[in-house]
C-alpha cells in the first residue's frame, strides 16, 4: 500500500466522475431547448443505475477471475473487495480501484445517449443501459483489462479506446439506426452552446484523470500519458479547425470543442505507449477524421447519430486503436509493444482484430438487446411527443421559464 498512490487514485476517480455530468451538459447544450432535460437525464441516470449495478455485480463480472470471456462471480456485492489491495495494484485499496472503474462503467453508458437523443423513450433507454452494461460493457472490460482474450492476445488499449469509446460509439450508431431519424434531423441548431462549452470543459478536465489515472500511480509512463493527453487534445482542436477552415472559412467553437474531444478519444488507447510527437500527430488526425465522420460519413450513410456518439467516439476510438498499432514503441513503455512504424506488424494486426471484434460483438449484442426491449416498451416516442418535446411529455418539466 502506498498512501500517495491512493490519494492520486482518489483524485483520478473524482476527475473521471465529473466527466459524466460533463457529457450530460455537453449533449444538453446541443439539442433543442425542449429536449435538454431528457438528453441530460439519459447521461445522468447511469450515475444512479450503473453505480448500484456495478457494486452489486458489474465489477465482479468485469474484473474477477473467470474465463477468457467473462469474469467470475466471486466479487459479487463487493464480497472481498475491501481495503486490501486487489490484484490490479499493490499500492491502492481494492475498493478504490473498483470505484475508479465504476466511473468508467458509468461514463461509457452516458456517452451512448448522444446517438439516441431527441427521440428515444426514457424507460427504454434506462432498461437498455442496464442490460447493455452487464452483457456488453462488463465482458468487454474483462476481455481487455480483466485478463480476457484480448489481453491475452496482447492488444494494447491503455485507457479504454475500445472498451469505452468504440463500444459506446458503435452502440450509439446501432441504436440511431434502429430508432430512425428525428423528424427534423436536418436542423441541428444547438440551443445553448455555452452549456456545451462547459460540458466539454468538464470532459477534458476529467480526461486527465481517465488517462493518467489509468497508470494507477505517478510513474514514468503516467507522466508521458499526461503530456500526451494534453498535446493530443490541443492537436485535435487544430486538426478539426484546419479542415473546417478549409471547408467553410469559419472555424467554429463547436468545432474546437469537438476537436478537443476527438483528439482525446484518439489518444486514449495510445497514450501510454507513444512519444509526444506521435501524440500530436494522433491528435491532429483524430480531429480531422472525426470531422469527416460527422460531416461526410453521417450524411453519406444517412443515419441520424444525433449528437455524434459514433462520429466522435466510434470514429476517433477506431483511429486511436489503429494509431496505437502504428505508433506504439517500447522505448516509451517497456510494458507495451512496438507498432508498425517500429517494425511491429504483429501489434498492428492485433489492434485490428481487437477493433473488429469489438465492432461485431457490440453491434450484434446491441441489436439483440434493443430488439428484445422493443417488445416490452416502444423504443421511440410517438410523433406528437417528439414535436412537443421530450422534456414536457416524458418528464413533465421544462428547462427554462420566462416571466410569463
Amino acid at each position, binding site marked *: 500500500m502506498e498512501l500517495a498512490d491512493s490519494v492520486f487514485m482518489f483524485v483520478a476517480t473524482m476527475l473521471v466522475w465529473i466527466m459524466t455530468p460533463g457529457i450530460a451538459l455537453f449533449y444538453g447544450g446541443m439539442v433543442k431547448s425542449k429536449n435538454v432535460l431528457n438528453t441530460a437525464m439519459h447521461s445522468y441516470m447511469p450515475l444512479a443505475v450503473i453505480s448500484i449495478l456495478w457494486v452489486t455485480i458489474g465489477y465482479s463480472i468485469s474484473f474477477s477471475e473467470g474465463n477468457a470471456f467473462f469474469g467470475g462471480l466471486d466479487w459479487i456485492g463487493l464480497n472481498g473487495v475491501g481495503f486490501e489491495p486487489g490484484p490490479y495494484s499493490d499500492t491502492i485499496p481494492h475498493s478504490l480501484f473498483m470505484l475508479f472503474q465504476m466511473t468508467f462503467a458509468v461514463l461509457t453508458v452516458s456517452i451512448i445517449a448522444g446517438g439516441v437523443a431527441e427521440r428515444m423513450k426514457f424507460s427504454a433507454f434506462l432498461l437498455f443501459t442496464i442490460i447493455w452494461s452487464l452483457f456488453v460493457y462488463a465482458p468487454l472490460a474483462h476481455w481487455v483489462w480483466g485478463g480476457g482474450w484480448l489481453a491475452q492476445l496482447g492488444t494494447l488499449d491503455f485507457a479504454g479506446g475500445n472498451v469505452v469509446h468504440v463500444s459506446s460509439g458503435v452502440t450509439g450508431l446501432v441504436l440511431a439506426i434502429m430508432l430512425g431519424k428525428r423528424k427534423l434531423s*436536418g*436542423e*441541428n*441548431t*444547438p440551443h445553448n452552446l455555452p452549456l456545451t462549452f462547459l460540458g466539454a470543459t468538464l470532459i477534458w478536465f476529467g480526461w486527465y484523470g481517465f488517462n493518467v489515472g489509468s497508470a494507477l500511480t505517478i510513474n514514468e509512463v503516467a507522466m508521458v500519458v499526461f503530456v500526451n493527453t494534453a498535446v493530443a487534445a490541443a492537436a485535435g482542436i487544430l486538426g478539426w479547425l484546419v479542415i*473546417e477552415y478549409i*471547408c*467553410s472559412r*469559419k472555424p*467554429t467553437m*463547436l*468545432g474546437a470543442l*469537438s476537436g478537443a474531444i476527438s483528439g482525446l478519444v484518439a489518444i486514449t488507447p495510445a497514450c501510454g505507449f507513444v512519444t509526444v510527437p506521435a501524440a500530436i500527430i494522433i491528435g491532429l488526425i483524430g480531429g480531422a477524421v472525426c*470531422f469527416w465522420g*460527422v*460531416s*461526410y460519413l453521417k*450524411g453519406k450513410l444517412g443515419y441520424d447519430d444525433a449528437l*455524434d456518439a459514433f*462520429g466522435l467516439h466510434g470514429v476517433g476510438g477506431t483511429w486511436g486503436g489503429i494509431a496505437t498499432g502504428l505508433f506504439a514503441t517500447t522505448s516509451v513503455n517497456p510494458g507495451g509493444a512496438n507498432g508498425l512504424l517500429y517494425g511491429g506488424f504483429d501489434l498492428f494486426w492485433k489492434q485490428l482484430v481487437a477493433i473488429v471484434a469489438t465492432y461485431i460483438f457490440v453491434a450484434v449484442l446491441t441489436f439483440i438487446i434493443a430488439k428484445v426491449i422493443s417488445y416490452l416498451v416502444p423504443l421511440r416516442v410517438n410523433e406528437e411527443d417528439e414535436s412537443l418535446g421530450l422534456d414536457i411529455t416524458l418528464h413533465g418539466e421544462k428547462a427554462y421559464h420566462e416571466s410569463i
Partner: protein
Amino acid sequence: MEEVLTKIEIVTRPEKFDVFKQELAKIGVSGITVAEVKGTGLQKGYKETYRGVTREISLHDRIKIEIVVCEVPVQQVIDLARKYFNTGKPGDGKIFIYELANVIKIRTGEEGRAALKNEQ
C-alpha cells in the same frame, strides 16, 4: 370626438433604437412598446455551420416598435424613423400604419386622446 388614433408599427434593426426612443420623447410621444421579432425580406441570409452541416438562415433579428399616437403628427414619427433606421442597405424594414378604434388607459380609465396625454 373626431379624433384620429393611429398605430405606427416599425419593423427594423435593433441598433439605433435608443436614440430613436429619446427623440420620440422630445416630440411628445407618451409611450412605446417594443418586441423582439425575426424578419425575412429582401435581405440576404447568412450561413450557420454545426459540425460540418451548413444551414442557410434567412431570418434576421429585428425589433417591432409600436407607437400609438393621436396628437403627435404621424408624419413626424415616420420621418424620425427614416432618419435613424435608414442605412441604405436591404433589411432596414418597413413602417406600417393602422387606424385604431379606441385606446383606454388602464390606470385612469381615460379613453381616446386623453389616454395618450402626458400628464404632469
